[in-house]
């Protein structure tokens, strides 16, 4: 156990925690805004996956990482807006639509990836040249903490910044208040002459932007290529995290950090050769989530109108 408490190991583990947290945080904050507007969007995983594929294809074909990033964000927004058309305009069941989007995304990206792969030989799958981490001058020189906190990808800084932006938006602005009321009682807004659907479209577009970034960070920063199914449940985890974080930005951030820490811990424990059952560690985040959900059941902040299509009378 003492192997784990060496400085290099601790720095490695906590830096890994923040890297692992980045895509989860981006996706969760996006989904939080979506759910606060009353939409249960289960297609985060699919939206991330399509964005990741778009990032890879666009970055490779254009040779520019920024084009890849743009493609990812636009794809995320497009996928989320398809949910808006189905759920907001046509009032189709939100769960079915979200699940459908996931199935479509996994099949479509696999198909397109295989098609694009035909032109490459074995062992020669093209990779992108990932974004480098950005060390913040001065702060990154602080021993230990600086190495962990201030030598990360821009995506990671942005993800954490968005937690506070989301908090400020939801709790300190009029639009945020309107959005929250939307999830609780859309009729109240409607009777005041405020458009329900326009706000839900906007919330989903924001969610798509964030899911697009979450997909992009996987391909353009944390790894160097697309692999079918590479989101590996991270989009689903974002939904679990929202429930565990009780639909509030800061607790959601803490939930992301707990999940990311447990992942980083199990990887580092294996890395140093600690003789503990790592399968247990892999399951831990989910056990923690279930316990957290039981704890908050009684004082849930879940929007009352979540998942219920709004019909104007």
């Amino acid at each position, binding site marked *: 156990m003492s192997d784990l408490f060496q400085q290099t190991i601790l720095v490695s583990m906590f830096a890994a925690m923040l890297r692992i947290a980045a895509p989860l945080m981006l996706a969760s904050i996006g989904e939080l805004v979506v759910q606060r507007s009353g939409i249960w969007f289960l297609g985060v995983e699919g939206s991330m996956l399509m964005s990741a594929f778009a990032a890879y294809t666009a970055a490779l074909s254009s040779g520019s990482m920024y084009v890849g990033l743009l493609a990812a964000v636009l794809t995320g927004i497009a996928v989320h807006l398809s949910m808006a058309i189905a759920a907001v305009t046509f009032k189709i069941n939100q769960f079915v639509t979200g699940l459908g989007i996931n199935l479509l995304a996994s099949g479509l990206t696999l198909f397109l990836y295989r098609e694009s792969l035909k032109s490459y030989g074995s062992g020669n*799958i093209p990779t992108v040249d990932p974004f480098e981490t950005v060390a913040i001058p001065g702060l990154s020189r602080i021993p230990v903490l600086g190495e962990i906190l201030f030598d990360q990808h821009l995506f990671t800084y942005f993800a954490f910044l968005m937690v506070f932006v989301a908090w400020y938006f939801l709790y300190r602005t009029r639009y945020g208040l309107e959005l929250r009321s939307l999830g609780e009682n859309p009729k109240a807004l409607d009777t005041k002459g405020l458009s329900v659907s326009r706000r839900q479209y906007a919330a989903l577009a924001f969610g798509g932007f964030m899911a697009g970034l979450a997909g992009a960070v*996987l391909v353009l920063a944390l*790894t160097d290529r697309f692999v079918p*199914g590479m989101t590996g449940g991270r989009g689903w985890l974002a939904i679990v995290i929202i429930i565990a974080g009780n639909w509030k930005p800061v607790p959601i951030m803490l939930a992301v950090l707990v999940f990311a820490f447990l992942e980083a811990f199990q990887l580092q424990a294996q890395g140093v*050769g600690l003789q503990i059952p790592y399968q247990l560690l892999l399951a831990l985040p989910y056990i923690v989530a279930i316990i957290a959900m039981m704890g908050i059941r009684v004082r849930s902040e879940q929007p009352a109108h979540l998942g219920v299509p709004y019909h104007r009378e």
Partner: protein
Amino acid sequence: MYPANLLNKTKAAVFGAAASVTMLAGGMVMAQSDVNIALMYSVGPESGWDKVVEEALDRVGADNKHGLNVSYDSKDAVYGEEAETVMNLLAKSGKYDIIISATAHSDQIKNLQGKYPDTMFVSLGSGNYNTGPNHYLLYGRVHEAAYLLGMLGAGMSETGVLGAVGSFPADDINDQLNAYKAGAQAVNPDAKVKISFIESWYDPQLAIEATYAQNAAGADVVYQLAGEVYEACRDRGILCFGLFQDTNSMAPDVVLSGTELIWDPAVEWVLDEWVKAKSDGGSFNGNTEPVWFGLADGGSDISPYHDLADKVPADLKDQIEQAKADIIAGTLEVPLVLDVPASD
């Protein structure tokens, strides 16, 4: 249906120049000597494991062994009941003489082999068991190559610590990890090997994080068994090894070598068995113990060093060449250990 009786009558003459004559005599459009294979992926062509099977089928097919025209169709990876449905349809179509599954489909084959006694079923890799006379088992063992990588890694490591990132502790991953460790300790008895499993076939982010974690614990040469993920290797400037195929071109500065899984002798063996079964008086005689082909049979190797060749000291190269020659000659036996290896 395949005219087995016709084959029996015409005996070995079917295979070879006489094939076209038989074809005309039989009034069939297709050549009688065609062997049609359906290959069921374990993951897909993006996975090294599946890709190398296709390449071997291409190469062996081009050789026209026994005068056979080998053609194959690759099928998507499916599991569970769906896999049984797919294999049933493949067998029922009568289009395929051999159905190769690149993964553990023995449970499904068990329900099908009796129904299609003229179809040859072949299972590749761990988790399979024989289900009947027309079911053949093959392993893709590259543990001998992994042993050589262990030697190379230990010779190149400055810290004396090697890493290995695995997918699942399956026995055809464990055999490699144990051999890798044995090889490393043959060169440096004090060498340590860090072993991690990510419990996923393909999760590049996890595999990369596992590499970072091993590097923090001292590993400066890491064997990547969970996909071709070299971002952490590039970022940290450490050497990495690939799995099943030469992946140097994906990261030429850091991929020093890797195991290569060459299915050619296995595919040839399958064709031999098929011909034996289909010739006069022959019948399927599926093996209960998986067959595998090692270094000596040309079933595995290590990838060339490419542009990194200058980095490898000459005496280390010699040592590895010697070990390779000894394995081929049979004087050095790499133990086949299937236990889940402990990380040092």
